[in-house]
Each structure stands twice: as structure tokens, then as C-alpha cells.
């Protein structure tokens, strides 16, 4: 039997995503190098600014691999921030308590959504849309005011600078400026690493792919499809809540309108990172680069200074189309190779 030519479009997509990021970043360095874009710290700032989104996108990727979607994440991040801010400032919880409450809220939220989608088999779009409205509504129920976080412990966590031993520079006054990251970045990268291991090296992770590839087959091969789906949504909401905490560390506030539309950024990042909306394909490394690409676009628009921030949305939309068309082309090539 002849071995068929193996065209692995999925790996190629990942490579294209990474190359695109590098190219985009290189262009930024050339054009805005004088404004400091080429400094290592600018790159780290993209990570710092998007730490929360990275966590959310990891969860989104897992759900999308099963062929589902979770559009409740933006509102849930908003609710998380609100709970953190209100809890610490108005209810005088300790920072630890507030964080634990938020994580528990995330899990409970995920269990409810996961049960309805996984066990009862309701469309994920509808359920998570209900989740979206619910979480956003709950924000307003807690308070319609904007609450600033003044908790000392939480502030301390948020402002810890972790200096990196490399990549620094000497400024005009002759002082060595070490590049730094914040604790949020460390947590986000740990989340990426753990999700990567989960997806690649655990039975649950592979089940997500199997369910997304062919649900009937997965069931017939003896996998518990319902539980796998339910767990995916729990994982998504949980990672989303971690993301919410990181988000709050950046913004230090809780307000009704916070993180609106974040779910779409997460979906866009996952798709740019090579996750298929049809399920079965995707990985978090791609998603990480997806976030970095959208982050770089934002940074480029900021560095330009003259462009409206809406231009970054337009750039993201163009990229999305580009990647979806690429995916379609690769699917076609694959089909052709087979025949």
C-alpha cells in the first residue's frame, strides 16, 4: 500500500502565525524603533497588557477544540473584576479571600454552563450567550458605580516587578534599566504551559480533540463525550476567572462595562492561532501567538499615535479573514491529496 503524501496544514498554520508575528514585530521595530518599539520592554509590555487575555484564550481554545464556543468569557471577566473590587473595598475581604471567591464563582459558572451544554446537549452559543447576559447583569446588580481597588496586598501583588537578567539597556542618564515582567505574565505563561501539557499529554486533552473530530466516533470508541464537553466549559470558565484576576491586577478597578467584547478578542486570537471553529484542531501555543499578534497590532497603533484605535480592530478583522481563508485553502488541498 502506498503511503499518501502527508500534507499537514495544521502545523503549517501554526508556523504561518509565528512567522506573521515575527514579521509584524520586525516591521514595528523598523518603523517605530526610534520611539522605543524595538526595546525588549515593549515586547514584555504586550505580554503584561494581555496576560488576562492569554488565560481566557487558553480556555477558549479548549472549548473550540471540542467544536463549541464560549462567549460568556468577557462578561465573566467583568464580573470577576467587580467581585474582586467590591469584595475587597466594600465588604473588606482579604485579597486571598477575594481571589478564592472569584475562582469558585468561575468554577460554579462553568459547571452550570457545562451541565447545560455537555449533559443536556443544548447549543453552546445560546447557553454561553445567556451566561454573557447573566454575568454582565450581575455586575450591575452588585453596583453600578466604578470601584477602585485600594487593597494593599492586592496592590502589592499587582506591582511586583520581576526583573529579567537579560535584555536590558542603559538609559540617557547612564542607569541600567533591567527589563521586567509582572506576576501576571508569569501566571499567564504557567497557564499556557499547563494547558499545553493538558491538551497534548492527558487523556482528557486528547478526548477534547476526539470529540471535536467526530463526536459519534468518540462515543463509540468509549469516551465519555458528555463529561468531556462539560469539563471543557468548566475549564474555560475557570481559566477565564484566573484571567479575570490578572485583568483586575492591570486595571485595578471593577466596573459594569469592563472587558466588554473580550470574548471576541479571545475567539479571534484562537482562530488566528490556528484553532478551527469546526473543532478538532487547535493548540495553545498558536493561541498565545494569536494574542501576541493582536497585542502587537494594538501596540503599533499606539506607537503611531495618530491613528484611531479603531484601526486595530480593522487590522484584526483583516487578519481573521486571511486566516480563515487559509484554513479553507488547506482543507481543500487536503481533500485533493486524498483523492
Amino acid at each position, binding site marked *: *500500500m502506498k*503511503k*499518501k*503524501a*502527508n*500534507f*499537514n496544514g495544521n502545523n503549517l498554520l501554526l508556523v504561518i502565525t509565528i512567522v506573521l508575528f515575527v514579521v509584524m514585530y520586525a516591521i514595528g521595530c523598523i518603523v517605530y524603533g526610534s520611539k522605543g518599539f524595538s526595546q525588549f520592554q515593549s515586547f514584555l509590555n504586550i505580554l503584561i497588557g494581555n496576560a488576562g487575555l492569554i488565560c481566557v484564550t487558553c480556555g477558549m481554545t479548549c472549548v473550540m477544540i471540542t467544536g463549541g464556543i464560549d462567549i460568556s468569557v468577557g462578561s465573566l471577566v467583568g464580573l470577576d473584576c467587580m467581585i474582586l473590587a467590591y469584595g475587597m473595598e466594600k465588604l473588606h475581604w482579604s485579597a486571598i479571600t477575594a481571589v478564592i471567591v472569584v475562582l469558585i464563582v468561575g468554577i460554579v459558572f462553568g459547571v452550570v454552563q457545562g451541565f447545560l451544554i455537555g449533559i443536556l446537549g443544548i447549543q453552546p452559543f445560546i447557553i454561553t450567550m445567556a451566561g454573557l447576559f447573566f454575568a454582565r447583569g450581575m455586575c450591575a446588580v452588585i453596583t453600578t458605580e466604578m470601584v477602585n481597588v485600594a487593597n494593599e496586598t492586592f496592590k502589592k501583588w499587582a506591582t511586583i516587578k520581576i526583573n529579567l537578567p537579560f535584555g536590558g539597556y542603559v538609559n540617557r542618564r547612564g542607569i541600567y534599566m533591567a527589563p521586567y515582567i509582572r506576576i501576571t505574565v508569569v501566571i499567564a505563561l504557567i497557564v499556557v504551559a499547563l494547558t499545553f*501539557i493538558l491538551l*497534548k*499529554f*492527558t*487523556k482528557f486533552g*486528547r*478526548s477534547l*480533540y*476526539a470529540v*471535536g*473530530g*467526530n463526536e*459519534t*466516533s*468518540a*462515543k*463509540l*470508541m*468509549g*469516551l*465519555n463525550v458528555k463529561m468531556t464537553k462539560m469539563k471543557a466549559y468548566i475549564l474555560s470558565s475557570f481559566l477565564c476567572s484566573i484571567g479575570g484576576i490578572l485583568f483586575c491586577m492591570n486595571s485595578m478597578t471593577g466596573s459594569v462595562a469592563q472587558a466588554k467584547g473580550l470574548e471576541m478578542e479571545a475567539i479571534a486570537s484562537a482562530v488566528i492561532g490556528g484553532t478551527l471553529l469546526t473543532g*478538532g*484542531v487547535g493548540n495553545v501555543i498558536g493561541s498565545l501567538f494569536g494574542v501576541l499578534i493582536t497585542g502587537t497590532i494594538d501596540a503599533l497603533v499606539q506607537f503611531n499615535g495618530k491613528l484611531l484605535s479603531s484601526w486595530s480592530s480593522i487590522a484584526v478583522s483583516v487578519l481573521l479573514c486571511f486566516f480563515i481563508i487559509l484554513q479553507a485553502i488547506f482543507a481543500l488541498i*487536503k481533500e*485533493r*491529496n*486524498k*483523492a
Partner: protein
Amino acid sequence: MENGVVLTMRGITKTFPGVKALGGVDFTLRKGEIHALMGENGAGKSTLIKVLTGVYDFENGEIHVEGIDSPIINHSTQEAQNRGISTVYQEVNLCPNLTVAENLFIGREPKKFGLIDWKTMNKKAQQIIDDLDIGIDVTVTLENYSVALQQMVAIARAVDMESKVLILDEPTSSLDDNEVEKLFGMMNRLKEQGVGIIFVTHFLEQVYAVCDRITVLRNGELVGEYPIAELPRVELVAKMMGKNFDDLASIKDADDTCIKDELIIDANGLSHKGKIKPFDLEIHKGEVIGLTGLLGSGRSELARAIYGADKAQTGTLKVNGKEVKINAPIDAMKLGMGFLPDDRKAEGVIADLSIRENIILALQAKRGVFKLIPRKEQERLAEKYIKEIQVKTASMETPISQLSGGNQQKVIIGRWLATNPDFLILDEPTRGIDIGTKTEIQKLVVKLAKEGKSVIFISSEIEEMIRTCDRMVVLRDGMKVGEISEDITQATIMKAIAGGDSNE
């Protein structure tokens, strides 16, 4: 439990809304035997298998498995697997986006420090694949391989589950002779190891080639269990159908040809890159053309090129003497062609629609979306074709997914007849359906030809083609290599397929 018996099912009863699918069926499987489960479509074979593997529940009866004292009820395929009952289905039920190795090991991956050990998994998987002589790379995702190879992987998976009972549900439908041979070798090896194999198939030859025992079902009832030596073919067929078997040879009267001189199709140098090399083909009115060749020889591809399912890239096509350009199937439909694809699950049946809706689908497409066929007319058409092609159903509003495979196929044929085509392409219309329905479909083809319609008939069963076709077109490796119009016999066809210059 008796000695040497691995599985008994006693008095199994299962009702679907309005239909009794199984009525007190008994089944016994012994160690190290290959046991054929035979019956027409709707006889209850699939239902029995699904009851056994936990896909369906059942109302009455007992299932016993060797080594377990009390009766078992499987609630899921996983549970059945844990009790040593594995199944390979007709449609490949694996995950195309995972690698071959994962498909073999999913749910029971080898682990190291609690994480999946890919290296060991790939090594073990390659071992299994090599042992079975399948010869593929296990680290490649499954979707890169043909359906036949995927089927082999599915069997490899079941084999490796250390099953006591292995159920093969129509596993050979998509395999070519060579692969079937390999599968039989595999089955015989397993048999020697003491595995009980339930073999569900429609190919009589295959039953007599490997099986030890036959259980026959009809209309959800047990007809009987027979050792293979005591049940000649004719009797088996008679038992399956519950009547004396139609003499198949009498379908076509040799002298009663209805071929007219007018050409309906005149293809000149049509081709589609990578699928079918340029070919010429003339088809007369009232003629039945058979396309024959090995799996993957370009049988379907030739038909698809004419129909525009794969747009022809070179050559010219004349329909009824006029040169035409077919860019898409809708053009072909408007010229009076109909095409029944070989993969009815993916390309033909719209499972959620009713029989009526499935029947009028092609006609509606031909008329355009804005000219809705009146409901009365729809019902008249549905009723006409349900009667004419004898679809077994409670009502025309039943979702097609509730019909058996053969009846679904009939509905799809009805869909094309409703468009009143002059030229019909039937790609494997009889695959996976029982012998009674096969005969009906063959008769239908001959009848259509008598009415002056032309048919391209594609089938893997040469006998069937000999019975129905006026002329055979032989294909090899994506190329039309010849035609046989006189002396169509198994021998001449085989010779043509093998090729004169072949060294084998």
C-alpha cells in the same frame, strides 16, 4: 453457561415507536467461531448488534457473557468494551483529526508519570499495524488515508482491545479484494486465538469463505441457526427472504434489447486531473453501461466527470447530439441527468428530513428555490415512488434516518426518478443492502432501460453487473482501458481488469 460458549442472547425484544424491531431473538456465539448474522434490510441485524453493544436498550430478554455469572445489560459501548465486546462498524468510526496511533489507543493511552507517553504509544501502535500488515505510518493523522485503510485501522483497534467477542458490521463494504483477503486472514488468526466473531455482511461469497455458522433473522424474528455446511446458498437466500428466491438470471432477457441508435451521451476526451485520464464514451438511449474496475480505478470519477461533480477539465461532451458545457451538477440535472453518489450517508441522505422531502429534493432543486412544488403534488410524487420502488415505511412523513439502509437507498433512487431523467448514474446503488432489495434495484434498472432511459451502473459485484448491463467499460488506474459488449462473463471482465500486459 455451556462449555465453549462466549455469548448467549435469549428472547431479546426491542420496540421502536410503532415498529417491533426484535421479537424474542436468540443468538449463541461459541469460542473460536466466525458466526454470520444474516438477514435482509430491516431484519433486525443492526438492532441486535446495537442492543448487544449498549447503543440501544431493550425491553425483554437476557444477555450472558462468559465469565460473568449474572445477565448483563450494557448501557454504553464503553461498558460493552469493558466486558470484552468490541465492534467495527460499516462506516469508519474513528476520529479523522487524530493520528493513527491515537485512534488505536484513545481512552487507554500508555502513560509515564501520569502523562501520555507518545513514544511508547507510537511504538506499540506501529507494532500492531505492522503485525496486521497494514503498512502505514501511525504518527500521521487518520484523514490522510483512504477509507479502506481507515477501516483496517478500526479493525486493528478492535482486535487490540483483547475482545472475547468481536463484531464486524459490514466491514468489507469499502475494501477491495486484496484487503478483504487480508481481513479474512486476520479473522482466521483471531479465531484460532479463541475469539468469537460476529460477522455481518451482505456478500454471500464472503460468508461461505470464512464463516462456521449462520444465524438468519427476518422481520425481527429468528429464522434459525445453521452450521455452514448444512445450509446451501440457495436455501440461505430463501430463508432470508422468506420465499423462493427469484432467479436472478431471469432479470434480463438476452434477446429483449431496447437499445436505440440515438446517442444520449457522447463524451470525447473528458478528464479531471489526478482523478480520471481523458476518455471517450458513447451511451445510447435505453442502454445500461457498467463501469468496472478495482477500487480506486476511476469508476466513480469517470461518472463524476460526466455529471460535473468534478468539472471536466478537457474534452467535449455532447448530450442528445448537442455540445454542452457542464460546470456544476445543476447544469447536468437540467440536461436530464441524475446522479446517485456512492456515499449515501454523506452525499445523498438528508437524515433529518422526511421521506417525502427527500424524494422531492432533486426536483425542487431543478425547478429552482422560488418555484415551490405544491404540497399536494409533493405528496402525490412521494406516494407514487414509495409504491413504485416499494419503500417499507409507516408513512411518507417518517424521517429518512429511521429507515434501514436499503430503504434509504430506494428513497434516494426515487428522488432521481422524480426528476424524470433520461440518463441516470447509479454509483454503488446496492452496496450494503440485502439481496432482496438488490434484486429489486437491478430489476428497476432494467425497467428504466426499457422505458428508454440510459443508465450508468457502477458496482463492485461483477455478477450483478453481468446481470444488468448491456456493455461494460473497464477502468484501471484512473484510465478507461476497454469495453466489453459481447460475451460479458466473469472471466472476460476479470481478464480485462487485470490487463493483458500484466505479469501477475
